[in-house]
């Protein structure tokens, strides 16, 4: 199950989706908005996506994870728009008969999502500046403006 949403991620519903009588293990990963990055203070994050492509890439990731591991259920939800401190921008939930597979698949899914899925994070720093995060590319911090 793949979803992009502007709303807070409903982890209760997500866990209910992946809990299954054929599964003995569930692993849920949440990526949450952290206050400090290398000493700089974040007040919130903003996420944007190339939605059609992101959905398709996430579906491909789910399919590949199901080929690599024997998963019972697999769900990935990414939130878009503003994500306040402590709240989840992404949730990956997998279930499997035994725990090793759920941990491995969950880790691979979030690692691969962060490498390949066309979704971008904009830092909203406490000093009022905003900055799209493009790993490996030159920084282009913008002061003020709106997300």
């Amino acid at each position: 199950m793949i979803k992009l949403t502007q709303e807070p991620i409903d982890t209760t519903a997500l866990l209910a989706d992946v809990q299954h009588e054929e599964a003995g293990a569930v692993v849920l990963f949440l990526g949450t908005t952290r206050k400090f990055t290398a000493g700089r203070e974040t007040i919130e994050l903003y996420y944007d996506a190339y939605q059609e492509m992101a959905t398709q890439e996430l579906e491909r990731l789910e399919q590949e994870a199901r080929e690599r591991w024997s998963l019972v259920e697999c769900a990935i939800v990414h939130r878009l728009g503003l994500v306040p401190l402590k709240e989840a921008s992404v949730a990956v939930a997998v279930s499997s008969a035994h725990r090793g597979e759920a941990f491995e698949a969950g880790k691979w899914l979030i690692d691969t999502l962060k490498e390949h899925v066309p979704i971008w994070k904009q830092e909203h720093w406490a000093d009022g500046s905003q900055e799209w995060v493009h790993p490996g590319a030159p920084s282009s911090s913008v002061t003020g403006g709106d997300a």
Partner: protein
Amino acid sequence: MATTKILLFAGARELVGQAEVTLEVNFPTTAVTLKAALVATHPELAPLLPHTLLAVDTQYATDDTPVSAGSTLALIPPVSGG
């Protein structure tokens, strides 16, 4: 020559100040040729462009991926979801 649109996202959108740009292109062409045309018309993209990928019909392209008229094109800066 035909007119084609390229979708922009995140830092690329911010540099250009628009969600998409229009290019005049001779089809068929390749991804690398389109990127060269893009930086010629939008030099503000120059610092970011070497770090971007082109997506053709929502698939990541390599430099020599052929691009025909009517394809949906998008410039993909380094991703940072999660």
